[in-house]
């Protein structure tokens, strides 16, 4: 239309741009279509996507260190591991009170297990030290109680700590948050205690320890704080505070008892030394390596699990390969990839002729053959795998037949199970239908006239097949291969049963970390790498063959 003067976008009858008008008209249809799939979408999101996302998140999540040792990691930040000297007294002091609360909450062993992944021996260190923490406070408790009975009374302590003036509710909130992070739960309820501002200034460490005690007693034990005797750790705090505290200006509750206690401790007790205490518990505590590990893993997120999953580790000096003896996962990944590829290839070789027969036999015979192909689907996976065990084992059917035929000596029966061979044979058999079905559906769509045309043009049977039929069946091979490969790479049950030691997959290791070693972070990292490898191969396949060429039916 040459006489048209309008140069802008096409307009609908009411003057709105045609594109917008069309979008509006289609939106209702799209929404209605979305409503239809909404139940499935929600189901998938809730039961599939969300758990996977949560699981993958675990592969980088590392809050346990800072949750369990919040003050110690904070103080440790200033320490330089390269000096080769252990950190100063203030770190040990913070560690003592962090660990004390963690031990009461029984969370210190969890941290020990976590750090044990990175530094062997940390687990037992934490466990044994957790048991001995009370000893330090008990020493001062005994001295104080001998001097004045009131130091052993919960009510006296409560009165002392609450004071008469202003109270600091913020500190209680902070300590409640500390406990919540440790327990991994939301704790509600009234603590029934708040330290006085005056006593907090005067006895900071005592207040810190007592607040921990009060929060734990009220929220976890659900007891009344005023009726309970404080933890031994509180006495350690008091001993430390009284070493330097200037009590002359204090006239609140228990003022005279504090003055007496300061006197008593100065006469009878050694000055408190946290470093010496930890060293006496276990001399590993003064090893800079432990502290370097804690410092390295004190951040909230870590790549440590991923490094571990590729046989590397994050040391205070940076990323490095693990020692030879500890390398495990790269070999497993390589083996998983190699075996999955071998299985896919065997499935192509075995499945292609069967699919061809299926597509070219008359319907009645093809149906019978189809039933034979599908039969394994109707049999339990465990039964099929166990059947291969019966077939392949050294006293099994195949070996018996070979010995009977005289092909194999009775003393030298073939080892065909509990190794890679066994896994490949059993998994090829199990996954074969996933290759045959897409191949069959693609081959059914190739009219026989193509082969005839090729032959009429002068091609031999082989040329006609290779240059005309085969290229058209490639989408089927692609679809089958993707299906088989992705199923194989994550297979678990069959390698577990017939794989032995050399025929297991990475998935077996993931299962081990999920259910036995409980190292979920590493399991998640391994799973994430597996997922990445599959997506990468998928992408490569799309680039090389084109995903549009895949036909599943």
């Amino acid at each position: 239309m040459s006489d048209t003067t309008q140069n802008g976008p096409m307009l609908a009858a009411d003057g709105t741009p045609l594109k917008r008008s069309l979008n509006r008209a289609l939106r209702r249809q799209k929404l209605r279509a979305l409503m239809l799939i909404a139940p499935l979408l929600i189901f998938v999101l809730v039961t599939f996507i969300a758990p996977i996302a949560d699981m993958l998140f675990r592969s980088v999540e590392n809050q346990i260190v800072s949750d369990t040792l919040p003050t110690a990691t904070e103080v440790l930040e200033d320490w330089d591991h390269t000096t080769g000297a252990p950190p100063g007294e203030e770190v040990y002091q913070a560690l003592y009170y962090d660990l004390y609360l963690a031990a009461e909450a029984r969370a210190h062993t969890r941290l020990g297990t976590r750090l044990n992944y990175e530094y062997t021996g940390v687990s037992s260190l934490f466990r044994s030290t957790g048991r001995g923490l009370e000893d330090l406070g008990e020493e001062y408790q005994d001295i104080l109680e001998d001097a004045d009975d009131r130091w052993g009374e919960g009510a006296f302590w409560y009165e002392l700590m609450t004071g008469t003036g202003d109270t600091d509710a913020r500190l209680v909130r902070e300590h409640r948050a500390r406990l919540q992070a440790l327990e991994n739960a939301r704790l509600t309820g009234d603590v029934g205690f708040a330290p006085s501002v005056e006593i907090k200034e005067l006895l900071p460490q005592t207040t810190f320890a007592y607040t921990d005690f009060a929060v734990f007693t009220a929220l976890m034990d659900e007891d009344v704080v005023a009726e309970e005797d404080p933890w031994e750790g509180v006495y350690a705090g008091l001993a430390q505070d009284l070493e330097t505290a200037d009590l002359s200006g204090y006239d609140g509750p228990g003022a005279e008892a504090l003055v007496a206690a300061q006197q008593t401790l100065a006469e009878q007790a050694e000055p408190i030394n946290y470093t010496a205490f930890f060293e006496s518990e276990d001399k590993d505590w003064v090893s800079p390596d432990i502290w370097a590990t804690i410092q390295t893993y004190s951040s909230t997120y870590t790549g440590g699990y991923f490094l571990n999953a590729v046989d590397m580790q994050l040391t205070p000096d940076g990323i490095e390969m693990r020692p030879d003896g500890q390398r495990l996962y790269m070999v497993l990944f390589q083996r998983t990839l190699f075996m999955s590829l071998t299985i896919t290839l065997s499935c192509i070789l075995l499945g292609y002729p069967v699919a061809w027969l299926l597509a070219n036999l008359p319907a009645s015979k093809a149906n019978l053959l189809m039933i034979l192909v599908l039969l394994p689907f109707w049999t339990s996976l465990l039964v099929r795998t166990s059947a291969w065990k019966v077939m392949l084992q050294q006293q099994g059917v195949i070996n018996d037949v070979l010995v009977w035929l005289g092909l194999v000596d009775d003393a030298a029966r073939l080892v065909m199970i509990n190794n890679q061979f066994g896994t490949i044979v059993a998994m090829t058999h199990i996954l074969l239908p996933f290759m045959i079905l897409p191949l069959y559906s693609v081959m059914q769509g190739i009219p026989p006239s193509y082969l005839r045309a090729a032959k009429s043009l002068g091609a031999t049977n082989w040329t006609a097949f290779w240059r005309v039929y085969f290229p058209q069946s490639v989408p089927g091979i692609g679809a089958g291969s993707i299906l088989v490969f992705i199923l194989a790479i994550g297979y678990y049950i069959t390698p577990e049963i017939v794989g032995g030691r050399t025929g297991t997959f990475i998935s077996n290791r993931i299962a081990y970390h999920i259910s036995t070693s409980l190292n979920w972070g590493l399991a998640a990292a391994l799973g994430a790498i597996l997922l990445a490898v599959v997506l990468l191969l998928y992408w490569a396949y799309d680039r090389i063959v084109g995903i549009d060429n895949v036909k599943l039916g």
Partner: protein
Amino acid sequence: MAATSDSEAFVAFERVQKSYDGETLVVKDLNLTMPKGEFLTMLGPSGSGKTTCLMMLAGFETATYGEIKLDGTSINNIPPHKRGIGMVFQNYALFPHMTVAENLSFPLEVRKMGKSEREGKIKRALDMVQMGDFAGRRPTQLSGGQQQRIALARALVFEPELVLMDEPLGALDKQLREHMQFEITRLAHELGITTVYVTHDQTEALTMSDRVAVFNDGRIQQLAAPDTLYEEPENSFVAQFIGENNTLEGVVKEISGNTCTVQLDNGELISARPVNVTEVGQRTQVSIRPERVETNKERLQEGAHLLKAEVLEFVYMGDIFRTRLRVAGNDDFVMKTRNAPDQERLKKGQMVEIGWLPDDCRALDA
């Protein structure tokens, strides 16, 4: 149609039989010879055995009995790829994963032809079907008619002496089909190729062929040039199958040379030309083409027989009028008259007298 082993015959079927299940014959005793350069069409309803014959000639089916000869030598045991016969398939069978040029190159490559020679031949073949600009396209990017041309070019590119075509125009619309009919016959005659063409479309058969073999029930019912086939059908099947045809049933009363008298079922006597009636008392179908029926007595010669007819339907079709009549108890008697100024337009229910020349009226088997 005797079983001659004529040395002129380029293609010959000799007493060929074919059975798929060992119980029924799909092709019964087929004898056919074709000279070089002929365009022969196998025409028949589906299941008549025409495609089976083509497939036997191409080598995709083996003859159960009999011999098929190509240029004097038996090809029964020669595999299809060594027969050197070009073939165009019903659905074109262009290889979808190859471009047009690659499709055409395929038969040349398997013949181990050099690259430059191949390119020359491909270009010539594509130009021949006016598709020179489409060498780089894939078959799916082409329209039906274009695919048809490429299929034709591919069947011709390796210069076979015999080309088989299996209902190649079946998927095209009417206009394109008519155009391609013309193209194919032009090419076949220009290149002097012997062509066997299979179709169930009688118009196609009549317009394209030098000779037409009408198949039914595994046998060739008649093998003749198109005009002979239309005007002188040898039996009632051919008369019915080729073109539109009116039949009146009756009994032969008298035969004398080139004419016979038939008593129709309503008792009327008409004269007809006896074609395959031999004796008096035999039942017969009398066949008259609709366009040979006349109502205008001035156009009829002396001695034309007149019958009473009632107009049941009158259809105006532009160039002609198509009138359905009730004649001698037959409600489907059709008359086609040319749209001329003096031609009367009949009304439904009107009684008319119709007639035809005895020569146009053929007494066939019942």
